[in-house]
């Protein structure tokens, strides 16, 4: 492990302590001081938003949009009811960073949600957890909520300041698509998780038709420290355009799989070292740098890339949710994409035609290829489908299903062809 990389300083700050998820532990490392300060000074919401814009914090759920700018879309002067929704429906294959924040540092999220609600003028916030979190994650959040209520940090008349903010926890039923923000709003409203078409955007017409801001767990959990230490502190970490820390969930053929919170812009090599290197000292073949829905990057390109939004984008992929999937030289790439395609086939909500029909079609062709029954004509068809799906659906699931297929064919066409030539 290299000593010069700061790890686990922000969202995983309590990890090194005993009872990391307890209220006392969080307070002992200075937790809730930002929220108390805001209450005591009656800080102007606009100042908080400006502060977050200055810090350069970007959404950690996948898209990487400036968090402060997102908050500023809410019309502060309107009388409408506003909502904050925390997207804790972490379902992107390979990603488990939010899960550990919820398990080990839930209070940071709650404090972040309180500050965000205050900044956008929401009196009610929802924390929507994925269905599979029903065990330890859910109980950890429940307990944290209870403690925060008991300490009068949430609820009616917070710390006798006349400020009222309620946070409700919700648990989903295990559909990938509900991680899409507007599908989540539908789900909270009690409807089926179908993404909504945009415009109108949620900041204008969201939950129950009211202005709504939806943020990722990691984004919100980063907020209290930024308020405490100032936007400059945060902005100085990382690169110019990618400021701050980011949690990466490293998995696959790696010696020490797990979550690593490191400054953005850290070279991929260092992250690989941190995680103990490729298993069995094998050669790195390929990396999916941001969850299964982003394009795959060949290992040699990845070794020269830094872990920030721009560098990965230059490498032809996306930082996404920060799920780094490592694949060694023995990996059969056709089998990998076979599995990924099946995932999107079964998780498509079925609303838009291209995604409903296209995900299944791609899977069926790849399946045929794996079984050695495909012809070159089938392969040509497969090559054309991702292009037909991407950009033409309501939500990004269409693109998410198309991009991996497109990239796997781009870099590993030979492997596909080897299956096809097997056909006698």
């Amino acid at each position, binding site marked *: 492990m290299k000593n010069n990389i700061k790890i686990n300083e922000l969202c995983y700050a309590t990890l090194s302590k005993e009872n990391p998820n307890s209220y006392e532990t969080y307070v002992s490392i200075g937790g809730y001081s930002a929220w108390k300060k805001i209450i005591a000074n009656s800080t102007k919401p606009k100042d908080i938003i400006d502060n977050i814009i200055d810090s350069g914090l970007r959404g950690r759920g996948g898209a990487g949009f400036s968090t402060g700018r997102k908050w500023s879309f809410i019309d502060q002067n309107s009388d409408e009811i506003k909502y904050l929704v925390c997207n804790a429906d972490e379902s992107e294959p390979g990603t488990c960073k939010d899960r550990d924040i919820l398990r080990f540092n839930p209070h940071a999220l709650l404090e972040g949600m309180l500050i965000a609600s205050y900044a956008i003028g929401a009196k009610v916030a929802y924390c929507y957890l994925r269905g599979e979190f029903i065990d330890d994650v859910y109980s950890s959040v429940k307990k944290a909520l209870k403690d925060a209520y008991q300490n009068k940090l949430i609820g009616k008349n917070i710390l006798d300041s006349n400020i009222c903010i309620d946070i409700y926890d919700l648990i989903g039923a295990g*559909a990938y*698509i509900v991680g899409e923000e507007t599908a989540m709003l539908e789900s909270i409203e009690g409807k*089926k998780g*179908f993404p909504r*078409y945009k*415009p109108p955007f949620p900041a204008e017409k969201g939950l129950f038709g009211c202005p709504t801001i939806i943020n990722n767990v990691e984004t919100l959990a980063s907020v209290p420290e930024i308020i405490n230490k100032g936007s400059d502190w945060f902005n100085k970490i990382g690169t110019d355009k990618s400021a701050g820390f980011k949690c990466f969930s490293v998995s696959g053929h790696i010696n020490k799989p797990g979550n690593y919170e490191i400054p953005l812009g850290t070279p991929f090599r260092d992250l690989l070292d941190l995680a103990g290197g490729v298993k069995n000292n094998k050669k790195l073949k390929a990396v999916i740098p941001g969850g299964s829905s982003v394009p795959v990057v060949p290992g040699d390109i990845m070794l020269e890339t830094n872990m920030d939004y721009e560098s990965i984008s230059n490498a032809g992929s996306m930082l996404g949710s920060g799920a780094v999937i490592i694949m060694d030289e023995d990996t059969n790439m056709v089998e990998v994409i076979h599995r990924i395609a099946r995932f999107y*086939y*079964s*998780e*498509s*909500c*079925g*609303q*838009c*035609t*291209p995604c*409903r*029909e*296209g*995900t*299944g*079609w791609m899977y*069926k062709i790849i399946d045929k290829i794996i079984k050695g029954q495909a012809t070159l004509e*089938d392969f040509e*068809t497969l090559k054309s489908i991702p292009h*037909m799906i991407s*950009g*033409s*659906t*309501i939500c990004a699931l269409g693109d998410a299903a198309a991009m991996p297929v497109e990239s796997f064919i781009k870099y590993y066409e030979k492997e596909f062809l080897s299956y096809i030539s097997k056909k006698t």
Partner: protein
Amino acid sequence: MKIKINNKEYFFEKGETIIQIADRNGIHIPRFCYHSKLSVAANCRMCLIEQVGINKPLPACSTPAIENQEYFTNSKIAQDSQKNTMEFLLINHPLDCPVCDQAGMCELQDQAFVHGRVKSRYSYEKRVLIDYKIGPLIKTNMTRCIHCTRCVRYGEEIAGIKEFGAVGRGENLEIRTYLSSAINSPMSGNMIDICPVGALNAGPSHMKGRTWELEEIKSISPHDCIGSNMSVHVLDNNVFRVVPFENNNINEIWLSDRDRFSYEAINHNERLKKPVAKIGGRYEEIEWEQAFEIIKKNIDETKFGMSAGFISANSTIEEQYLFQKWLRELNINNIDHRVSQNYFSNVDDNLFPKIDIPIKDIEKINSILLVDSNLTYDQPILSHKIRKAYLNNAKINTIQTFNYKYNFETSESLLINPNLIIEILIDAIEYLSVITINDKTLNNFSVPEEIKKNFKGKGLTNKKIKKFCGDLLFDNSLILLGSNLKNHQDYELLKILTNIISILTKSHIGFLGDKCNEAGAWLTGCLPKKSVGLKDQKNIGLNVYESIKASLDTYIIYNLDLIDFYHYSDLKKSLSEANFVLGFHSFISDEDLNYYDLVLPLATVFESPGTFVNIEGEWQSFSNSLNPFYLAKEGWKILTKLRLVFGKEINNKFDYIDIINEVEAEIRKNKKVLNINLENLKIQKIESNTNLIRSGGYSNYFNDNIVRRAFSLNNVNNNKNTVSLNKKTLEKNNIDIEKNKVIIRQGEKSLLAELIIDENVSDNCVFMVNSNKEHYELGKQYQQILIENV
């Protein structure tokens, strides 16, 4: 504001989407999920177009136009996207157009023709779904479904009864009903029209013909009082199907199931092919000439005073006009059409089925008081308008004898025994006359003394009445009196009381009818006291009840089943004692035939041209869709011939168009304001009695002689032999609720029926559906009834 589409400039208003602008200007954009009457779903992705400056295609249906922006519907991006979507839609859609009912009018087929590939690249098993039954009206073939969700949105937004939903996800997404239940909406047939593919087809015409073989004739619905416009599609002189004809003043693009599927009755086995006469105690088919001879022989001068004629309010205005003209020429003045009315007072009210506001404006009403109407099922189109008003935040209150199911929510409803409606309305008048005492704009309108005598002070304390009246005092309010109340013994008084309330609250008022041309029957003077144009008749005749009670010598019944008469049992008795009974009928049951001496075969409305007047006062003419069945003749022809037979000189060239001209000349010049004359108003002493009373009208599809014989519609009807009472009433009458059967007695008859405990029934009320034969043989509604343990 301006935008550019395909290099041409177009104007638009803020908030309009590209597809709206394109549709208005005749620019074709393909679509499946978008429908101008439904909310936007943007899920089919067929309408993808290019917005200059954005590198991905946008759906025209959900993209709001931006000023000075440029769009292309035919550029490479747009066309490629449409082509791609088409390919995706077709991979799982069966390519079996030759055996699909939708072929020839299928939007998918049309688009495939433009954007589809010659050969499919998809070589895997296609998705197949097992069909499920959702009732006799809609035939499903869900394998063909393209998941546009129009039917789902139709149910939620238009019909107001959510029946379809999308179950499952991804490729397994399936449109179906919850727990495979049947579709129950009275406007369900519209889903067949809005379904862009062959997933939802019309049940009755399934697999019976091809769309391109059909001839289309515009017609008017022969059922409710709205006069929905419809298009009759004819194949080989048979009605193949009926679809709505767009009329934004009346039915928009919708049609109720009753209007859509009633045509199935046309070839019912009770149709008359030739005149039938009783000769020597047996019924024989005879020729027309013979029939006229029999009529001439039996209706002679000596019997004119001893004859009566009843005509259906479902007949055309031409038939009604000629009917009364023929009879009055013979000096037969006992003419009436109000056969379903229970009791006739001496009040000359002139309050005929009408509504004093255009139907299209009902959606703008702010407050509605509904007096005992099963509106959603009796008048589906009107109910849709009220649903629209409701969605515009109108307050809807009801006074009702049964908690009917509506497709809108009511803000306050009062469930009362039918005997108490009069009392409640008088209470309301009492309250209103107090609060409007200083209102100068009422022009000194004073409540008749006869009503004032019955004020008991209750109206001033009853909170619900205050709420109803308060809401009616809003600007632009409406009172609707249900058609079922025609069977109520005080129907005429109910009309007067609601009319007084409408005067005091300055509301609009509507008296609903359950027949398509009741207004026409009034206007043509098919009444004992009125002649054409509602002019007072010199020689006053007997009304229908008096005519039946008087046991006359001759009865002439035009286009009515005997069951249509409220005084059904009395009528049968009088008919069997009469010397000569003449019928003009399209259909006749063997049982009814026994009461006739001669029945002439009448063309149905589908086989005859005519005109109907709806409650709005709109005259709508239509031509015949079919040629008459066998030797049946159009009513106007038979009646004209009869006038000739009885010696009236008629110009040889006299034809159908002359009748319209004559009717119009007589009626349209008489557009006087109708005043109500309340001099003879008498109100019997109102006592609250606790006798059990029978209530419950016909099921949805039993209210006229055509619908009654429409096969598929009748499969939807609930004709079970059941009686419903609420628990309180049952306890009061010491009925053992453990047993599920009871004996009911009405007059001298009795019946064993299944008991249902239903809190939707008002106190002291026994709710029975009249369309069950055992039930109507027992008697009619609003009569005293007894209930006993088995």
